[in-house]
């Protein structure tokens, strides 16, 4: 009986039946398209007849008779920028469908992307504003919350000044919200604002921009398909950027490319490598110099590239000469022959790309590490073309964008810095009076001084007042979308939270901030929506901007980020100035208008061409963009690159196509070509800093040239190409010195337009700097981690001397010396490193509250090698105590005995929180908002150590001991 019924049903269910006779069933081409297996060539085939709007009876299941809409957003879990396609009915998100048209993800997701629907409706979200009263969470209204928080902040401001309030923003913000947040902090009167880039790629931005102009991924995930050699050093994209592996692995297969992974762990990425090289954590510079030693020794360097486009290579040669194979092996553990083989492939089997993430950046030598990587690319001529470059995989979905828009206490938006000129530029863009903005600050000096970094907020809270360079300690933390478990030295953070007068968390979930301390009062939790409940743009790692729609309205009592900032600005009385040219509808500022304001001011970085209209057109015509080049071959975006990757020069009307590959001289600037930025002057000690004989295709100046200013235009006689309107704006900006108006400050865009008309790049045509004389180590040198297991090497390779940075002392040298003197490495003999696994993101605040993800791995664990486990009598899966080198810290978790880590090395994921030093904190969460999965935080046992340039923390190398629990 049953079988017959099933067969009847089955016949209806065949594909031919579903598609109808006319469509001819699912033929091979349609099938391939749905399988996402082919490139853009098949994009022209129409969609399947039943796709798009779901049949009204389809389910989980939608109600009949009500239309089901399809809306597009971007995944919020990493910087790859996967399009999320949502099916919505009646304001309810019913399902996710593959986003076939996106050239970035072609339908694919990882576990996190495939589960984002649950983020929005998650039952463990923070549902309404709540405050802590005598240790109990009490529900309050938004009005009451904003009123009370505002009054408390004003009281702190009156007594201690605006710098005593810290504004910690988020890489989860849209570009518009991150920009607004930075502007808000400025109007509040402080540079004490930051976001996750500090602990992510701050050192990349500093190191890379100091080398060749811009601190960003030079190429794109898609372009890696062109590479013949991929070196992944300090990254595990198979877990951190899974969809990028689609491009990496397909490229590897099609080109039969070398796929080389250099890492202390044999990662899931390394499982697909053609070569895997295990190094001791913290020895990146010796390894890179070791590679260059072979390259120089054998003459494999690209001499012509160096001659034309690189400054200071001789000083590099001197440093590299100190790293012959035996010294490299002594320090890093890599045999010379293995490194020679890698070096030869990197130098000779071109194009070669160097890919990195937090493995290089999260070190006291992070800035120097990434500079050494850039230098390795420069020496081999592997930058500025297709298939090569520094492919820096950013972390969060909008950490690139939030960095660009300046949610960073050391600069105004778009890297203008903090000097008076920068403030005046932004005051012109904001259309506010410079003197009024200055009056908001405690002093002009503090207005022009970089703020405390997110890694040091608790030091600025706990230290004696006379040790910090601002009038008073930090007294209030305003935390908008930042995990509480991703910053090192958590025992100090706990004390810091307890010392504050006020802690406010604005997030979708309560976060670790809410439960870490033993506070009883003055903690407020305000529910904000996810980005799926908002709209705007986010910048993927490849610098493409993508517009995303609001899929559903904020659920429960959550509000969009824009609205929360608007409410606070209203309370403080500067909403009118803050939103002077931004429409506010029903209390929600317009993301389109915010982007237009960004367009009007971001000349230095080329966020000027990406108007909301152009980006929405890209969203609607994704299928026209090529998989490899990212260029549209057809449709209204023809000739443009997907997402108008910055720099997208000039005004939107100029229709610049975006820059898919930075510094690529083989293209005309109008086609996305470029040159190294002439950012560091024209000469130094009589040696030119401008390119020699190298220029982008079609350039009328066939040599290096400086940044474009009005003076340069006049000298070239090109100033007469400016329109009267442009000249009027330039006159207004320049006042009595119009010659000084530059490509980056001309609000008309005229200087950029004219330069581009003549085939020139507005930011000049300079050499990349192998020697960055303004950094603490102009030539990168190896320095042992603060807590090094190799005390024998600390004397020869010590960390930098103590200094004051970002308003607080950095006493790394003292700590390193004391650790050696006290014999810490004997007591804590294992190197401890931390990192990510695929199912969670960041501190796991969101993902541990997502039941589909939380279920996948439910226990915090530490990886330990079989040899180390045997010595300690530890069995796989058993409970262990991990003890750290500071504050007598300890953490209880399970042991994962694996050869993934080498002997002497242990590794922990940093996604867990909710346990502290063995004690479950679940009772401390507001009822019903506790994450599904809790565990010890890796950062409970991490230690001191800060990069001198950015105060990046050092969670990648410290010391620990493990004992059976």
């Amino acid at each position, binding site marked *: 009986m049953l079988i017959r019924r099933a067969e009847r049903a089955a016949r209806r269910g065949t594909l031919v039946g579903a598609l109808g006779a006319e469509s001819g069933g699912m033929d091979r081409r349609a*099938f391939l398209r749905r399988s996402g297996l082919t490139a853009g060539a098949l994009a022209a085939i129409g969609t399947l007849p039943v796709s798009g709007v779901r049949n009204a009876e389809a389910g989980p299941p939608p109600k009949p008779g009500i239309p089901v809409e399809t809306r597009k957003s971007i995944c919020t879990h990493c910087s790859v920028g996967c399009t999320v396609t949502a099916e919505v009915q009646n304001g309810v998100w019913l399902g996710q469908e593959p986003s076939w048209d996106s050239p970035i993800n072609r339908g694919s997701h990882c*576990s996190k992307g495939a589960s984002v629907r649950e983020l929005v409706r998650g039952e463990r979200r923070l549902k309404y504003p709540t405050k802590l009263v005598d240790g109990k969470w009490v529900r309050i209204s938004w009005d009451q919350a904003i009123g009370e928080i505002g009054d408390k902040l004003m009281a702190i401001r009156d007594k201690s000044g605006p710098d005593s309030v810290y504004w910690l923003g988020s890489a989860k913000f849209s570009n518009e919200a991150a920009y607004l947040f930075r502007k808000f902090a400025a109007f509040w009167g402080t540079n004490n604002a930051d976001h996750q880039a500090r602990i992510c790629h701050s050192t990349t931005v500093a190191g890379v921009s100091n080398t060749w102009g811009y601190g960003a991924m030079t190429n794109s995930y898609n372009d890696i398909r062109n590479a013949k050699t991929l070196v992944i050093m300090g990254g595990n994209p198979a877990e951190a950027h899974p969809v990028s592996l689609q491009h990496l692995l397909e490229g590897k297969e099609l080109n039969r490319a070398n796929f080389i992974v250099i890492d202390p762990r044999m990662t899931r990425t390394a499982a697909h490598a053609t070569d895997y090289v295990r190094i001791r954590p913290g020895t990146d510079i010796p390894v890179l110099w070791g590679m260059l030693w072979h390259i120089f020794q054998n003459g494999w360097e690209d001499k012509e590239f160096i001659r034309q486009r690189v400054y200071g290579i001789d000083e590099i040669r001197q440093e590299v000469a100190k790293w012959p194979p035996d010294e490299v092996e002594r320090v890093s553990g890599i045999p010379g022959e293995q490194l020679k083989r890698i070096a030869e492939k990197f130098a000779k089997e071109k194009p070669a790309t160097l890919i990195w993430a937090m493995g290089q950046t999260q070190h006291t030598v992070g800035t120097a590490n990434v500079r050494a990587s850039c230098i390795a690319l420069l020496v081999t001529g592997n930058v500025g073309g297709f298939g090569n470059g520094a492919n820096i995989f950013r972390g969060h979905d909008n950490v690139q964008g939030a960095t660009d828009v300046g949610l960073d206490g050391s600069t105004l938006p778009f890297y203008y810095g903090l000097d008076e000129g920068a403030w005046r530029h932004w005051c012109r863009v904001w259309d506010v009076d410079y003197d009024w903005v200055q009056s908001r600050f405690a002093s002009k000096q503090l207005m022009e001084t970089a703020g405390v970094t997110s890694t040091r907020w608790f030091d600025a809270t706990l230290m004696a007042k006379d040790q910090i360079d601002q009038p008073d300690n930090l007294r209030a933390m305003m935390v908008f979308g930042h995990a509480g478990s991703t910053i090192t030295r958590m025992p100090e953070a706990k004390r810091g939270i307890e010392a504050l007068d006020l802690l406010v968390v604005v997030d979708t979930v309560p976060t670790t901030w809410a439960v870490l301390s033993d506070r009883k009062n003055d903690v407020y939790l305000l529910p904000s929506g996810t980005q799926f409940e908002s709209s705007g743009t986010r910048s993927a790692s490849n610098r493409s901007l993508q517009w995303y729609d609001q899929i559903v309205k904020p659920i429960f009592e959550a509000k969009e980020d824009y609205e929360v900032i608007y409410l606070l600005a209203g309370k403080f009385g500067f909403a009118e100035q803050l939103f002077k040219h931004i429409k506010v509808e029903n209390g929600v500022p317009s993301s389109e208008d915010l982007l237009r304001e960004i367009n009007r001011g971001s000349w230095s970085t080329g966020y000027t061409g990406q108007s909301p209209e152009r980006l929405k057109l890209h969203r609607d015509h994704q299928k026209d963009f090529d998989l490899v080049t990212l260029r549209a071959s057809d449709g209204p975006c023809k000739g443009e690159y997907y997402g108008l990757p910055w720099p997208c020069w000039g005004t939107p009307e100029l229709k610049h196509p975006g820059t898919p590959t930075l510094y690529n001289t083989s293209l005309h600037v109008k086609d996305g070509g470029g040159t190294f930025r002439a950012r560091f002057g024209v000469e130094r000690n009589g040696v030119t800093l401008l390119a020699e004989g190298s220029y982008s295709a079609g350039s009328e100046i066939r040599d290096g040239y400086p940044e474009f200013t009005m003076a340069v235009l006049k000298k070239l006689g090109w100033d007469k190409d400016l329109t009267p309107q442009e000249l009027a704006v330039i006159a207004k900006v320049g006042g009595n010195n119009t010659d000084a108006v530059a490509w980056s400050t001309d609000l008309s865009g005229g200087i950029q337009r004219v330069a581009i008309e003549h085939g020139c790049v507005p930011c000049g045509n300079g050499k990349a700097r192998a020697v960055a004389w303004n950094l603490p180590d102009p030539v990168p040198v190896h320095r042992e981690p603060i807590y090094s297991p190799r005390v024998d090497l600390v004397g020869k390779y010590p960390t930098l001397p103590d200094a004051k940075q970002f308003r607080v002392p950095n006493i790394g040298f003292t700590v390193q010396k004391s650790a050696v003197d006290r014999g810490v490495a004997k007591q804590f003999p294992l190197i401890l490193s931390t990192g990510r696994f695929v199912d969670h993101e960041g501190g796991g605040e969101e993902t541990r509250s997502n039941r589909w993800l939380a279920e996948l791995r439910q226990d915090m664990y530490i990886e330990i090698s079989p040899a180390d486990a045997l010595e300690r009598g530890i069995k796989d899966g058993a409970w262990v105590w991990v003890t750290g080198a500071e504050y007598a810290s300890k953490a209880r978790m399970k042991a994962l005995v694996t050869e993934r880590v080498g002997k002497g090395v242990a590794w922990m994921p940093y996604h867990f929180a909710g346990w502290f030093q063995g004690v479950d904190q679940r009772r401390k969460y507001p009822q019903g908002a506790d994450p599904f999965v809790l565990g010890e935080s890796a950062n409970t046992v991490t230690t001191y150590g800060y990069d001198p340039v950015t105060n990046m923390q050092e969670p990648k190398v410290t010391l620990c001991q493990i004992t059976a629990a």
Partner: protein
Amino acid sequence: MARMKFLCDADRCIECNACATACKNENEVPWGLNRRRVVTINDGKPGERSVSMACMHCTDAPCQAVCPVECIYTTADGVVLHSKDQCIGCGYCFYACPFGAPQYPQVSNFGSRGKMDKCTFCAGGPEVHNSPEEYAKYGANRLAEGKLPLCAEMCSTKSLLAGEGEIVADIYKERVVTRGYGSGAWGWITAYGADTGV
């Protein structure tokens, strides 16, 4: 007639679990049941490989042969489905299955099993296509809408392939030839027989 098959290209699988959560999302599979999971061999060692596993919808399904109430059947597309109304939760299919596909919700504290649950190839069950009843018992019926299982459609590296057996086999063969290596389509011969080699 189309004959639906799964193939996981172990040289592409990165154990990202997209397939597992896509399945949860599409079919609202509750906590504790996993219709699809990723298995890794040689974890952390050279030669580490991962394979995404679920019901393979075998040609001559052993679960079907052992089911005492004959609730398991093969559709004309070659998809192996079952009737939860008929299932008695005996667990024979679990022992017969070479892939560990059948799952059982825990319904009491005394170890008794609920109705068997497994991957449906996103093809629902014996109820009316895409009806609320079908969704509640079996989850989505994408096949009836002309779509393939979401796990394969969303696979991060296009490792997991689903669809008409011959096309899937062709794609895999083409890949192996292009790249010059292939560690085999794990489970393919067990599920579909030696004469359908890839």
